């Protein structure tokens, strides 16, 4: 790597990595070809730090979200110990039991980041009891629908609409198990959301989807059918 006077040197799993001041662990790791699992983080959007799937251990003592924690000189990051992997796996399992994720008929299946994360982590069935919460579906919009059964409350739609589309379409209401996505109006069709908006494409799961074009990609040609999520980032190592 080219030497830069301002570069920060730190380690991920004992491997020396360089990053620039102000970069988060996740950003610097990604540039070095190291994948830190994440669901709520989306490039170009202010990190939300809500899914905690990117949890890493720093200095062997404290855990933090790699998507929000800036790097510093000499930082020691644990991204792959059994402890960290178990913790992340438990978090993803909880996301499955806290929602109603029926992969068998969801048109996001195969392209879903939550599902892909479970595949990558080898989750066969969650160890936690299913909650089967009641959630609302809003299909009032002519081009899009929002199915809160599948929502993992990552805020990607909220922040993408505000930061990239310049629209206040989504927000959160409620706390704890009552927390849910609300829209700026009685229903989705009352909002300024348009099918071409970046926010319409920001959802990692099948909670916000276009009404047309479902199941367009056949099984075998979908995003995560052959290659695990994150393998594109890991492939950069060899360059």
């Amino acid at each position: 790597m080219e030497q830069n006077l301002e570069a920060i040197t730190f380690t991920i799993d004992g491997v020396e990595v360089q990053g620039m001041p102000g970069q988060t662990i996740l950003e610097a790791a990604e540039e070095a070809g190291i994948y830190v699992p994440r669901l709520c983080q989306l490039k170009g959007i202010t990190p939300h730090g809500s899914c905690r799937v990117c949890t890493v251990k720093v200095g062997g003592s404290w855990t933090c979200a790699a998507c929000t924690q800036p790097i510093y000189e000499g930082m020691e990051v644990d991204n792959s110990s059994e402890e960290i992997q178990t913790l992340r796996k438990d978090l993803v399992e909880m996301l499955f039991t806290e929602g109603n994720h029926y992969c068998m008929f969801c048109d996001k299946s195969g392209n879903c980041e939550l599902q892909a994360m479970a595949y990558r982590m080898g989750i066969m069935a969650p160890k936690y009891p299913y909650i089967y919460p009641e959630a609302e579906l809003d299909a009032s919009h002519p081009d899009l629908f929002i199915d809160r059964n599948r929502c993992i409350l990552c805020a990607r739609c909220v922040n993408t609409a505000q930061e990239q589309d310049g629209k206040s379409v989504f927000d959160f209401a409620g706390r704890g198990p009552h927390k849910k996505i609300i829209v700026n109006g009685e229903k989705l069709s009352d909002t300024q959301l348009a099918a071409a908006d970046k926010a319409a494409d920001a959802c990692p799961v099948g909670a916000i989807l276009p009404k047309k074009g479902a199941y367009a990609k056949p099984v075998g040609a979908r995003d995560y059918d052959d290659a695990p999520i994150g393998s594109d980032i890991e492939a950069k190592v060899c360059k």
Partner: protein
Amino acid sequence: MSKPKVATAALSGCFGCHMSILDIDERILDLIEVVDFHKSPINDIKTFTERCAIGIIEGGCCNEENVAVLQDFRKNCDILISFGDCATMGGVPALRNGIPLKECLDEAYIDGPTVHNPNKVVPNDRELPLLLNKVRPCQEIVKIDYSLPGCPPSADTLWEALNALLADKPVDLPYELIKFD
């Protein structure tokens, strides 16, 4: 030495996972060289008469009979596998979990647009197993040793898992065989 026994059951599912068992095609000839099928809808053996090495469960638990069968399997099988999405997460039958049971029964037997039921009686014969309030995946009822997700899991998934178990190895599926759809 007698061959290890494999038992299967279809609880609250659609039988698609059993179709997937048959989908191992001619490999079933290799399979019956090394195992015997015991209690299973495939051979219609109704009760356990000996201990089984492996029990394969399709479907979750939607009624008290499902629970009894599942507990019977746990008692009689060394290794219990929940097979398919209904067994591991409730699946399509669990879609009723968000609706009160009475509303489901009323819609099915009284109010449904194609229902002809002048007496407005919901079937209540004592022979009928009572429905649970919510459909539950198998691991919430008994201890499950291995789960194989999929709707249905592919024949290769089952083949891989059975071969590992028969070779006394843990089931460790490759990436391509872990599918939730």
